């Protein structure tokens, strides 16, 4: 039986909001990483998966629960765990070699050996010849290679990858992924386990032995999908497609949103619902595409994602928004346009705005609330802070700002209310 690299028991993490009410980001996470496996963490953006990764790295202390690395508690970054960052996090004033050596320098390894090991790591990851280059001279793909070399040179047992490919273009990302999996399969790196946070379903299915799907608010483990396909995996293979479908189904039918499937219960969302940050122009485009051939009103979500060239983190908020407004209906990894959705998409601009406004008032309590307040006030004006304070009872300051921005955008489109950017005042006059 393989031994445990890392175990998490009942890990919870909450952040303080200004009024000292904690907001739960991670709720009772239990997870076991074993030697020899690649585990992928998937979830919507803001679901706490990156926080979990930082907890495991020892960068963020959990509020509750036990975190053990090889049986030892982790309280701060420890030797043996390395991390690769989404933004690369390279030191711009150090050369490639300097960046790679940094971790070794901190370990107090003498200069000669440092140089030798760094050069070996640089060669291993395919950066030979670029040792003296500064990060700004390199392309994104090369920079992330430096990020990998810097992590691998410390010969970590456990490699934590925080969306390492998401800042790269598709082609570069797939090359780098291929190289990583090759190093891993051929055991050319001493790494015993890899945990990758991702929002790209296909990437996760391509790499992982096990996919863990996160749900948000608070972050919980929603489900787990083991993958036994042999490497290298072919994304066009039916078995691969089936797993992708399965993951999408799990992602789009999170338990706390089951009520949304039933129209009668749509009003169940409250004032403090975290509205998905989706732009109207984009979900309008999406619904138009859905109605057109070949979908004709109904589509498989992974196929749609592929066709629209949208990542999961972009597509899911749009689907959620459409669903919320009653324009589409999602079930078992499929999305279907409702009658009002069709009417909305096929109307002219004025009619569209009317339908949108009606749905917004009906389905989004926050929009209805803002409209009511403005109607009741004598001057029909209210500062945004008023609503921000209310939202902050439910969520962090930052999220409140995002949610209010979303509802203001939607409200403006529906011409329900106007907003003045400089004074931060909402009013009934159209902006």
């Amino acid at each position, binding site marked *: 039986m393989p031994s445990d690299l890392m175990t998490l028991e009942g890990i919870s993490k909450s952040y303080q909001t200004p009024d000292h009410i904690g907001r739960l980001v991670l709720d009772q996470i239990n997870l076991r990483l074993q030697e020899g496996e690649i585990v992928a963490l998937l979830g919507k953006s803001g679901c706490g998966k990156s926080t979990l990764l*930082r907890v495991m*790295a020892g*960068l963020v202390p959990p509020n509750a629960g036990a975190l053990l690395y090889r049986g030892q508690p982790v309280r*701060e*970054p420890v*030797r043996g*765990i*390395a*991390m690769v*960052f*989404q*933004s*690369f*996090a*390279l*030191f*711009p*004033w*150090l050369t490639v070699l300097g960046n790679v050596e*940094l*971790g070794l*320098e*901190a*370990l107090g390894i003498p*200069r*000669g050996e440092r*140089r030798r090991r760094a050069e070996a790591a640089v060669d291993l990851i395919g950066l030979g010849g670029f040792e003296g280059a*500064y990060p*700004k001279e390199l392309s994104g793909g090369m920079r992330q290679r430096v990020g990998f070399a*810097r992590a691998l040179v*410390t010969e970590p047992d456990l490699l934590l990858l925080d969306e390492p490919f998401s800042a790269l273009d598709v082609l570069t990302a797939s090359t780098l992924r291929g190289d990583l999996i090759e190093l891993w399969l051929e055991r050319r790196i001493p790494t015993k386990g890899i945990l990758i946070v991702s929002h790209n379903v296909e990437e996760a299915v391509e790499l992982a032995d096990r996919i863990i799907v996160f749900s948000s608010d608070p972050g919980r483990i929603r489900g787990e999908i083991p993958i036994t396909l042999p490497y290298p995996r072919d994304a066009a293979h039916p078995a691969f497609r089936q797993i992708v479908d399965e993951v999408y189904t799990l992602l789009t039918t999170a338990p706390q949103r089951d009520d949304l499937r039933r129209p009668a219960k749509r009003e169940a969302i409250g004032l403090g619902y975290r509205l998905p940050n989706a732009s109207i122009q984009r979900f309008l485009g999406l619904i138009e595409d859905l109605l057109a051939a070949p979908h004709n009103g109904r589509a498989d979500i992974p196929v749609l994602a592929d066709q629209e060239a949208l990542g999961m983190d972009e597509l899911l908020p749009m689907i959620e928004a459409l669903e919320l407004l009653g324009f589409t209906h999602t079930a078992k990894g499929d999305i279907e346009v409702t009658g009002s959705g069709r009417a909305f998409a096929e109307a002219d601009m004025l009619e569209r705005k009317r339908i949108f406004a009606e749905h917004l008032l009906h389905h989004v309590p926050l929009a209805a609330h803002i409209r009511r307040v403005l109607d009741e006030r004598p001057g029909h004006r209210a500062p945004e802070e008023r609503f921000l304070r209310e939202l902050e009872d439910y969520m962090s300051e930052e999220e409140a700002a995002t949610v209010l921005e979303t509802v203001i955008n939607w409200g403006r489109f529906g011409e329900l209310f106007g907003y003045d950017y*400089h004074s931060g005042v909402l009013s009934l006059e159209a902006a």
Partner: protein
Amino acid sequence: MLRHWGIPVELWPLRLRVGWWDIAAALLVFGAMAALIWTGRKVAAPFTLGQPVSISLDAMLLPEYALRTTLRMFAALAASLLFSLVYAAWAVKLPRAGRILIPLLDILQSVPILGYLSITITGFIALFPGRLLGVECAAIFAIFTSQAWNMTFSLYQSFRTVPADLVEAARMYRLSPWHRFWRLEVPFAMPSLIWNMMMSMSGGWFFVVAAEAITVNGQNIMLPGIGSYIALAIEQRDLHAVGYAIATMLVVIAVYDQLMFRPLLAWSAKFKAEAVEGESELSSWFLTMVQRAKLIRGLAALARALVELSRRARGFLTALVRPVRREAALPADLDRWLGRLLDIALSLLALAGGFLIWRYVSGEVALAEAVRVLLLGLFTALRVAALILLASLVWVPVGVWIGLRPQLAQRVQPVVQFLAAFPANLFFPVVVLAIVHFRLNVEIWISPLMILGTQWYILFNVIAGASAIPTELRHVCANLGVKGAVWWRRVVLPAIFPAYVTGAVTASGGSWNASIVAEVAKWGDTTLVATGIGAYIAHSTEAGDFPRIALGIVVLCLYVTLFNRLLWRRLYNLAAERYRFD
């Protein structure tokens, strides 16, 4: 790699083949060392208060004077750097201390340097009785006070904005606090620190005359240096000597600009995360020389070897830069109580300080005089405001005109930088002569002296702002036929606004500080005095009247702080909110 005396062996054969750059570099290094030793001996000469140090207007002595002054300036700059590093690191790493340290800095900055000088000089002389070293220290300290604060602010600002992902990477790879400080925080702060060092240096020149020719208790002490030379030339109405001094300064400023700041700026470009679009790469012949010279490469390797060795003995220094862990470990309640206690203690201390100043000043100065000083401050405030307005009217159009022509802008920028570094007080004699000759109104015509040195910041920033206007935007204007008043009002002025505000803030701060020097201008026996708080402080300093100096400084600080809070901060916020290109 084999090594010999700390130098990688590969470098040895190359080192023996001496090239031209090596000779030049060696001359410079040895020359600098010799100069240091030589002045060091002179400084240690015995000195008793009362015995005059002889200064001569002989032009042959100017190189020596220039060297001494420059060394003083660099000593002060080094002190400023050290102070800034420690102070900014503390302010950032100990948030509780930072709460008081930063406002403190704000005040320290608005205290005019003459204030520091008059208050501390006697202490410094007492510290080294019978030696010139005391006066020397006082002068260096005075220059230090004109250089340090903006450097500290810049470091503090940078330390606080180190990118989060780099901080996480540094923690992940377990860099020690010491290591993190030098590998992450300081390099990140480097580009803006070097800009501020350049500005500090220019500021220092302006006050060099005041710092070298010191009046203590009615007694005049002149340190050998270019500042004293100028002071003497003015006292003896020697126009030739003033001319020589101007020429010398031109050379000195050109030399350190070429040998120090341009190389530093070019070098610091590597600390910027990304090259900003459209920003031209600075080049420096001196940096190229340093980078190519084999001798210097060898020295660099030696330095690295030394650093490697010294890493063992640094426990004490680590304590300076280590984030305080204990504080975080305290229970929340106790922590809050301690914080409150500290607040109370600080408030009490501040109250006691205020009371002391009040007692001190009120014992000597009647209330009516205090009111009069407030009024004097108002006069100076009017003068500063009018000058900034005037300078803006002149330099904004000029700056825009230059900024929209990239090639011209590239050639003009170094010239403007140079002008900013040039001490305006050298032109005082010219102004005084003109006022006397044409019988002009002193109150009005002496004012331009205040902004002579600082107006360049407006020009400099407007040029930068105008050249940053996106080309597409200019094409759109051409396409739509936007011209004349509409073009100014809707396009150019909003576009350069943030840059303009930055320049105007700097110019305004500099003018306040300069008022002490500029409201009193002398030429031999002719002394022109304008009504204002600067003249009041200058006069009190000359008389050694400490209560009045204190009162003047307090009122000046008050005005500067009010100006900053009420005017500039608002414009700044406006600029940051509304007029910027994202």
